[in-house]
């Protein structure tokens, strides 16, 4: 009678668990097929595509100006930076000269968008860990940004603020003063979040040392934005390949050290501060001049293709546009979404942690499914 080895009590032979697609903390329609051994995650396979609207295919049947509307709906939390990325790629393709004032306005819009996106990230990921108050605080400040956008372009979510060659509308009268007022208000409110979270023992235990990824792995996996900088890689498109008016702005890049969830949290908070700094410089230095460059009535760029990336709040947002020189719509419009590449790292981050950490990790890579699925 050989004695067989006692099987584990629950002998949950690798329970497979579906987290999503309707789950409160997956930030949209993302489904994670988790393989669990008891409480520990052994395998994770993200299933995406629920929000795939085929924006790239659609853009081949819209003319260049209409595509700006499509880009609004990709990362619907940061529509202005999507517009900026697309519009700048076409200007590079068409080698158009954008007036300095338009570039300043675009920088202001992009930084406002970064603050708003980080605030929403802060609220939702802290809310997932149970700190509901931070969610409400974050959304309260975000309202101020939405008001500023509404004043400039009339919309609160999908702005359609930019045109190829410049800005459609000039700045409303005392818009600049309101932005400065917002910056001061936001500067005063940041300590509110930090009191609640930064040195809160429970938050530290839930985030320190969770989802650690080294700099080299982050680069290899194609991470970008805060997840990449959280691991100590000082890579920021605004510094490396300055666009819009970032070459005239003085700001520094927030870089983490360990590459865990807590560092990414600190990096994003620091980025909000840097954005406020840029906003102040941009508003003060807003030059006079036209807002719209010399653009032919009918936009038909010459045959050719180009790739241009900008620093969206989620990471490096790249556009690869090919034109065949004959038709009015882009022959091929490819989007390199930051959330898509960051989400790819999730399985590597999650394996080995507990199920409860999956919630924190989905929050820390800050994905928006509109951008992932396009």
């Amino acid at each position: 009678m050989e004695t067989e080895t006692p099987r584990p009590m629950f002998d949950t032979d690798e329970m497979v668990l579906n987290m999503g697609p309707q789950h409160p903390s997956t930030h949209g329609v993302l489904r994670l097929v988790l393989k669990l051994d008891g409480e520990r995650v052994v395998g994770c396979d993200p299933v995406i595509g629920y929000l795939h609207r085929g924006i790239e295919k659609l853009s081949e049947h819209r003319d260049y100006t209409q595509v700006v509307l499509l880009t609004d709906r990709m990362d619907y939390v940061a529509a202005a930076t999507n517009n900026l990325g697309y519009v700048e790629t076409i200007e590079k393709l068409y080698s158009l000269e954008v007036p300095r004032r338009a570039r300043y306005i675009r920088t202001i819009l992009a930084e406002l968008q970064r603050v708003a996106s980080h605030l929403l990230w802060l609220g939702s990921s802290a809310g997932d860990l149970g700190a509901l108050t931070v969610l409400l605080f974050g959304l309260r400040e975000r309202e101020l940004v939405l008001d500023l956008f509404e004043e400039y372009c009339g919309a609160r979510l999908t702005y359609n603020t930019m045109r190829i060659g410049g800005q459609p509308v000039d700045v409303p009268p005392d818009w600049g003063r309101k932005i400065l007022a917002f910056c001061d208000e936001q500067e005063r409110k940041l300590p509110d979040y930090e009191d609640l979270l930064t040195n809160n023992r429970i938050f530290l235990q839930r985030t320190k040392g969770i989802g650690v990824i080294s700099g080299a792995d982050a680069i290899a996996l194609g991470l970008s934005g805060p997840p990449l900088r959280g691991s100590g890689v000082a890579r920021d498109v605004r510094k490396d390949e300055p666009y819009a008016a970032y070459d005239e702005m003085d700001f520094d890049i927030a870089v983490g050290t360990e590459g865990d969830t807590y560092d990414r949290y600190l990096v994003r908070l620091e980025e909000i501060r840097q954005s406020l700094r840029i906003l102040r410089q941009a508003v003060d230095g807003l030059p006079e001049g036209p807002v719209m460059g010399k653009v032919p009535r009918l936009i038909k760029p010459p045959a050719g293709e180009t790739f241009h990336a900008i620093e969206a709040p989620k990471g490096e947002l790249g556009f690869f546009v090919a034109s065949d020189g004959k038709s009015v719509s882009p022959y091929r419009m490819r989007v390199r979404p930051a959330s898509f590449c960051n989400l790819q790292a999730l399985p590597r981050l999650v394996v080995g942690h507990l199920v409860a950490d999956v919630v924190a990790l989905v929050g820390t890579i800050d994905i928006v499914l509109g951008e992932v699925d396009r």
Partner: protein
Amino acid sequence: MSEGEKPAPEQIPTAPPAAKPAAPSGPKGEAKAGPAKTEAKPAAPPGPPDPEPPPDAAVPACVTALQSGLPGAVEHVSVWVGDWTVVVPAGRLVDAATFLRDQAACRFDYLSDLTAVDWLGRDARFDVVLCLYSTALRHRLRVKVRVADGEPVPSVAGLWPAANWLEREVFDMFGITFTGHPDLRRILMPPDWQGHPQRKDYPLEGPGELLMENPQDWLKAGQAAVESGIE
């Protein structure tokens, strides 16, 4: 999109056109006789111009290093609006990629993007485009591989794990298979989807309600619809 004659571009004023683009709804061109050329110009096959670099342009160190390091790996070098592009044959892609990643002159450790462009009508139909970036030397390079429909491309997922999902998306959307890819399956479309949506000969409206076994079926269905005068 093999939808036959596209109306002359002048007709679309800058004002937004009617809700649907003026292109006729149902695919008109007869599929079997080879797709009609979308471009009016019959002579030059469709494809990116890839202009020759002007003689005085300073060829970046990485391109010259690649040309000297792997003789014959580089078919064509071009530069346009400041982007350097290198065209590499499919067979030599992995060697070139390893060279570009590891050599001191290049150190392209960051695969920013991997995508494909469908130049319908050209015999080597697909352009697989790799946008590389070096976080150390802060410069960019685009590597292109021209492949025909059905011809596999060696996967670079081994060199840059970032390529894993990017290649899966290209496979899902264009049907280009990547040999050596750890887990090549559809990523955005449902697993049992027929056809590859972002090909130029795939209608914008999709295959309609009936998921055809064979992608060509909807062409016939579309034609049948047109003949019966629906719409």
